[in-house]
């Protein structure tokens, strides 16, 4: 059971707080990725505060659902979500990327509770998730594996090796959520190295494919809940998100993929979100 069970209003409010954390963390750190974390804040909130069976007091509880973040560079959203869910103190968010911090520039499983795998090099998380799903099946355990991926990492051939493996073993305890925000560091995915038709590709690999507006809380909950009921195939949820969501001058701008806001941009962002204009 989810320990929080927030309703939609509380989830929406929490996602906004998480966006504020992300902006403050990145401004304080002076480097990092901004657009992706802001875009994925709603999905992370929905998972940790409503959907996941997990236990912040006992991060390695065997029956927990697993969230494998494959594109580790969006870790500010993971760190903020974990802190707000109770895995560690919110104060620690101020140490993102700093010397001696447990909040490494890209996630390190051995440093921080709640991290299922160290990650950053793209195209690896789905394979790890397949291994976890196989282990769960072998042990006759009911927990689910959520593989959170970027759209850009579908350019890695290894992502498709993993997609093939998941369908070979018909892993219906595996749900991949692809952040289809259309941007990568150098520009728009379809200009850089086209990945469409994503839906057709996953269907051709014998996955069930669902699509959501990844910034619509009600829609996120409804579709993930329906995915949990599906049997016989792995499920891919293509989450159409707006990179930089919530801060107008960052939205849909690939330039914001890999940079952090300065103090002025932070304050503008917080104002737009309706949050207290205070830096870390």
């Amino acid at each position, binding site marked *: 059971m989810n320990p929080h069970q927030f309703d939609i209003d509380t989830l929406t409010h929490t996602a906004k707080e998480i966006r504020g954390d992300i902006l403050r963390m990145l401004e304080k750190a002076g480097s990092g990725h901004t657009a992706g974390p802001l875009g994925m804040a709603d999905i992370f909130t929905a998972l940790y505060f409503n959907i996941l069976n997990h236990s912040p007091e006992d991060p390695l509880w065997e029956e927990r659902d697993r969230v494998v973040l494959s594109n580790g560079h969006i870790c500010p959203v993971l760190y903020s979500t974990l802190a707000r869910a109770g895995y560690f103190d919110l104060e620690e968010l101020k140490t993102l990327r700093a010397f001696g911090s447990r909040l490494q520039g890209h996630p390190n499983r051995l440093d921080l509770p709640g991290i299922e795998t160290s990650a950053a090099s793209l195209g690896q998380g789905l394979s790890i998730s397949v291994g976890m799903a196989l282990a769960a099946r072998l042990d006759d355990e009911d927990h689910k594996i959520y593989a959170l991926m970027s759209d850009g990492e579908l350019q890695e051939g*290894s992502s498709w090796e993993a997609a093939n493996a998941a369908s070979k073993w018909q892993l219906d305890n595996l749900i991949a959520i692809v952040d289809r925000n259309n941007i990568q560091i150098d520009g728009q995915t379809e200009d850089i190295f086209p990945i469409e038709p994503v839906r057709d590709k996953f269907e051709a690999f014998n996955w069930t494919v669902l699509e959501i507006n990844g910034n619509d809380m009600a829609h996120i909950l409804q579709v993930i809940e329906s995915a949990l009921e599906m049997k016989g195939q792995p499920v891919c949820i293509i989450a159409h998100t707006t990179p930089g969501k919530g801060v107008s001058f960052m939205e849909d701008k690939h330039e914001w993929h890999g940079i952090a806001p300065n103090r002025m941009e932070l304050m503008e962002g917080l104002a737009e979100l309706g949050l207290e204009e205070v830096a870390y």
Partner: protein
Amino acid sequence: MKLAPNLFTNPEMKATRAGFGEGMTALGEADENIVALCADLSGSLKLGDFISKWPDRFFQSGVAEQNMVNMAVGLALSGKIPFATSFGVFMPMRTLDQIRISVCYNNANVKLAASHTGISVGPDGATHQALEDIAVMRVLPKMKVIVPADANETKKATISAAKISGPVYLRFGRQNAPVYTTEDTPFEIGKINRLRDGKDVAIVACGVMVYESLLAAEELSKNGIEASVLNCHTIKPIDAETLIEVAKECGAVVTAEEHQKIGGMGSAVAEVLVESENVPMELIGIEDRFGESGESGELMEKYGLTSANIVKSVRKILKRK
């Protein structure tokens, strides 16, 4: 030294990879958390018995090594003890990124077992002769690297690898080779096995070159030169204590391995000795080049991986003492 009495007469011939298959069967019986993965080479890796006994615990991963290594990571992070297997040229060589980030940085309890390493792979030629894998694996933090000397030792190494926590790389050969260690021959990860005592020179070897070193020592002995022979099956963590001890005792060290000289076991030995007991060294290995097709014996001869070449190196180093 507890070696087979028929060591130099008519030893049984068996590939090290066969010992791996036996080790996996023993492990499979002992611990249900042991699982195996293979990238379309399960026959070559001698996994047939494991697969027939525990089909649910074998994951045929197809020709997709990168995915296989990371599936092993996912299994390990869920409490399994996975052995991911292939030919050395495909894994670890193709899958370095997966091994670096997901296996080692995660400190995942993944065992990587590679067969068909070294020049003795033979007719398949250069593409299939992994000569760089020791160097590439031993440079990774948290990785342990083991190159067993014969089939019996391979079985022991396989079982021992499962008993320690964290990443291990195991390296095997394709071709039949003398079996001369016995049930009673000691094997401990990280501990050099001293097979012969001599005061004039120490020969440090791994894999099939250990037997060549024993042959070389016999030959040298006929001419009044007494060599110590050390089976350095664990290249990482290397047994620095024993290396320093024999370097002090013998005053000269020859190393021999079926791998590039650059970055291999000889380099690992040199890294230890240069900081402590800086004696003259000669390194025998592949001289910064690719292999080629040919029969195993022909290639070992051409590339100097023979007892005769070890004898030659010993004579050379004795002049530098």
